[in-house]
């Protein structure tokens, strides 16, 4: 049976350098994941804080046998942000593209098409594969059936699903952390740093609904898609992406590892995940072609 690999996605939040260092050193030493994404995806203004820590962490992860992927910005606007994408695309490591902006700079060399790139069908997938896409993690709103159809039309790429974490739902030119604090994006004071898993947005009747993370809007609930190995194989899915949070990500990876190896039933794996102090309830509606907010395995 082909092995289902685990990928640790990029950290979406504004974690201070020290937290990033502690996090990735522990991932290098303990997490049973094959691939680790590093890099700022959400906000270019955070890059001066995290950029200095990456070289040491990349080396540390590679020494531990992890395949490192450099993730790039999902919504570049400034000249500096665009240049950072171009620079990263010149790297010999695998690069994750999260905006079409990066495609010309990476054409002909292998890349990961991340969930912010609109791959909704086989034609789009094949088009990107011809330019170098090697792994495709389709937009989060696609069901496993849809991903399976795309994968079938595009046998030359690996397909990965966004299996764990608050769902990246939207990006804006406006910073919602700044807006909430009565500030503008240009003088934001980095208030997003106060919320290392994002800040929950409740409805007026106190239902946890969304979460804000600077210019990004996420789900308040936590995506927990738990396919069996056979389901993955049937759908052409060879990787599960785990998106970092402040909970014990090594334990999250262990739970998914046992699931991917068929040593754990999804139901039991979900119960184990729920005990990890996650920032929200488990949802998996998208994977079943329903609303993303639908509770996990309510079918």
């Amino acid at each position, binding site marked *: 049976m082909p092995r289902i690999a685990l990928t640790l996605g990029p950290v979406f939040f504004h974690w201070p350098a020290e937290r990033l260092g502690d996090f990735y050193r522990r991932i290098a030493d303990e997490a049973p994941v094959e691939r680790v994404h590093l890099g700022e995806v959400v906000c270019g203004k955070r890059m001066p804080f995290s950029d200095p820590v990456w070289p040491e962490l990349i080396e540390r992860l590679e020494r531990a046998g992890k395949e490192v992927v450099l993730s790039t910005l*999902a919504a*570049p*606007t400034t000249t500096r942000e*665009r240049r950072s*994408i*171009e620079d990263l695309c010149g790297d010999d490591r695998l690069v994750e593209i999260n*905006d*079409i*902006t*990066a*495609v*010309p*700079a990476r054409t002909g060399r292998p890349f990961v098409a991340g969930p*912010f790139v*609109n*791959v*909704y*069908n086989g*034609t*789009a997938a094949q*088009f*990107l594969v011809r330019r170098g896409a090697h792994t495709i993690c389709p*937009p*989060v*709103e696609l069901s496993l*059936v*849809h991903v399976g*159809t*795309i994968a079938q*039309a595009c046998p030359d790429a690996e397909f990965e699903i966004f299996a764990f974490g608050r769902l990246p*739902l*939207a*990006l*804006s*030119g*406006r*910073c*919602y952390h700044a807006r*909430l*604090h009565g500030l*503008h994006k*240009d003088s934001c004071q980095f208030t997003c740093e106060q919320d290392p898993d994002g*800040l*929950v*947005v*409740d*409805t*007026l*009747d106190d*239902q946890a*609904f*969304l979460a*804000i993370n600077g210019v990004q*809007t996420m*789900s308040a609930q936590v995506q927990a898609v738990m396919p069996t190995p056979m389901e993955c194989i049937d759908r052409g899915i060879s990787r599960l992406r785990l998106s970092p949070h402040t909970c014990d990500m090594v334990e999250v990876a262990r739970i998914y590892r046992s699931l991917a190896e068929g040593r754990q039933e999804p139901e039991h794996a979900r119960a184990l995940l729920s005990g990890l102090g996650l920032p929200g309830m488990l949802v998996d509606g*998208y994977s079943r072609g*329903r*609303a*993303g*907010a639908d509770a996990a395995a309510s079918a």
Partner: protein
Amino acid sequence: MIKGQHMELVCPAGTPATLRAAVQAGADAVYCGFRDETNARNFPGLNFSPKEMAEGIRFAHDHGSKVLVAINTFARAENPDPWRKAADSAAASGADAIIAADIAVLDHMAASHPQTRLHLSVQAGAATPEAIDFYAEAFGVRRVVLPRVLSVQEIAALNRAIAVETEAFVFGGLCVMMEGRCHLSSYATGRSPNLNGVCSPPEAVSYVEDAAGTTARLSGFTIDRYDRGEAAGYPTLCKGRFKAGGKTGYLFEDPVSLNAGSMIVALREAGVTALKIEGRQRGKGYVTQVVRAFREAVDAAEQGHDPGEIDSILAGLSEGGRQTTGAYRKTWR
């Protein structure tokens, strides 16, 4: 664009009658879509059959206007046929351009209908010279509809860096998220702009009355609440009232609409080729009124009138609702 060149006024039409009204009110171009999920305004009772589209194009051409056909959702993995058919039908009917976002649709147009102009939909979210050049080189895109998150200064810089035309929204609904990359609607309701051509769809909306007033919900999520006697608005997800960090309010955007009439001169100086009015879901009367006012405003801008005069031409269009110039002014962020 070259200074002094005519700016194109691009107007919405959800029905054949609205198309005729927009043309007669002075639209340089009208944009519309087929009656299915191939376009991003897939609402009941709206849009065109292939026959109506062909007739609409004929009518517009007879009156000196263009028709741009929006096929701007993402083709379904299991059945891309409707998107292909829509593209073929629009091209065969003599559409002046197709507005598309999906690589599959763009690829099909470039391969099968290279003579038909391609415009990149706002749903493609192309906001950098690299992204725009990519679509121009890969598919021969001739114009890009700009995401509603750019400031006028950024648009000017963009126009200096790219070879294709740009089109900017000036009036109507305002997406605060980057279009084509927003899954808020499907997260709550299961249906989204990219997949189904709808956002916060009507079938998911409910209004619940109690002693205190009315609660507007979307698939059971409370989006806003109104006191007794207060008019309840439509629960568009990103314009709702929520709580976070001990504060309650419109966390994403107030229930406002875009009116960048005062920015027409600035957008023209920033090199924008076409100005777009949102509102394919709007009726004939509304479209006529808005198109007429913008026709007058654009003509005034081209004759060198100042922004204050242009603003006064458009003053009557507010409908009592609140308006914003959106991201065009940097303070919006």
